[in-house]
């Protein structure tokens, strides 16, 4: 079932996005992210912010208790995909990620969740490009990782 503790979300003025559908794709119909407990935290004109809380079963090492770096790739893909989705402003053109790169800028802190903010900075007729910043919620200006994604777009001509 969809979580009912949805954070207060608002869409940019004039947006044609279906917020209920966006929340569902971000947090619920995507089973991998439902299991991570991914939350949609903010929506911008060309971007989104999502977050995952720290959890014992998502760490790299019981000793350091920091989240596993591989999880970052999962967040980069999801945040960038959602950023392209909102950047398309309701146009049904999203076709799927074709490539992504993650740079791990430093170690993740013990027992800390992460937020991923992504924005799509170019949408062409065939491909959209998006980039993401991953940070601990307590330190949004000090990213622990960055990522980029290329997303295939479907033909939008009628």
């Amino acid at each position, binding site marked *: 079932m969809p979580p009912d503790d949805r954070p207060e979300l608002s869409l940019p003025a004039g947006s044609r996005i279906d917020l209920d559908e966006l929340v569902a794709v971000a947090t619920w119909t995507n089973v991998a992210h439902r299991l991570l407990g991914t939350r949609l935290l903010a929506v911008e004109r060309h971007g989104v912010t999502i977050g995952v809380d720290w959890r014992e079963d*998502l760490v790299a090492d019981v000793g350091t208790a920091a989240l596993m770096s*591989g999880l970052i790739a999962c967040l*980069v*893909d999801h945040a960038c995909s959602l950023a392209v989705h909102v950047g398309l402003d309701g146009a049904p053109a999203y076709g799927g990620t074709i490539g992504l790169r993650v740079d791990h800028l430093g170690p993740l802190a013990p027992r800390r969740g992460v937020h991923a903010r992504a924005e799509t900075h170019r949408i062409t007729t065939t491909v959209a490009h998006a980039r993401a910043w991953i940070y601990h919620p307590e330190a949004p200006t000090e990213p622990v990782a960055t990522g980029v994604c290329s997303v295939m777009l479907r033909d939008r001509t009628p």
Partner: protein
Amino acid sequence: VSGPRPDAIDAVIAATPYLVFLGLRCDPSGPTIVLGGEERHMGDHRRRTVHGGVMAAFLEAAGFVHLAASSDPPVPGIKAVDFTTDLLREAALVDTHARVVVVRRGRRIANVRVEAWQDEPDRPVAVGHGNYLLEPAPG
């Protein structure tokens, strides 16, 4: 030289909670590292495909597991510095196998390539490459 032994691969997975969460295992016949074809990895519920982010996490994890399982003596800290994944085909909810090639293993940095396939080894669903930091033992 052949790759890491299956029991070493299983030991690294068992010691890494997130990899247990993903349900990674070793197929000793390869040996390959396997992401099970489970519903829990699904991204698009209409097409019933593996989430691209899970596939990318799997490839990065496979590089880590391979390096950790083939380190003798063990290297205490192996951390991905960067990892790039190309998603070549939609991946169905069936077992995905990863094969890792260590392109260069230096003293501090290892460079790997990873190829992932499902039913046919010659038909990859995803490929990746990355650099990993090999942190020396403290002291």
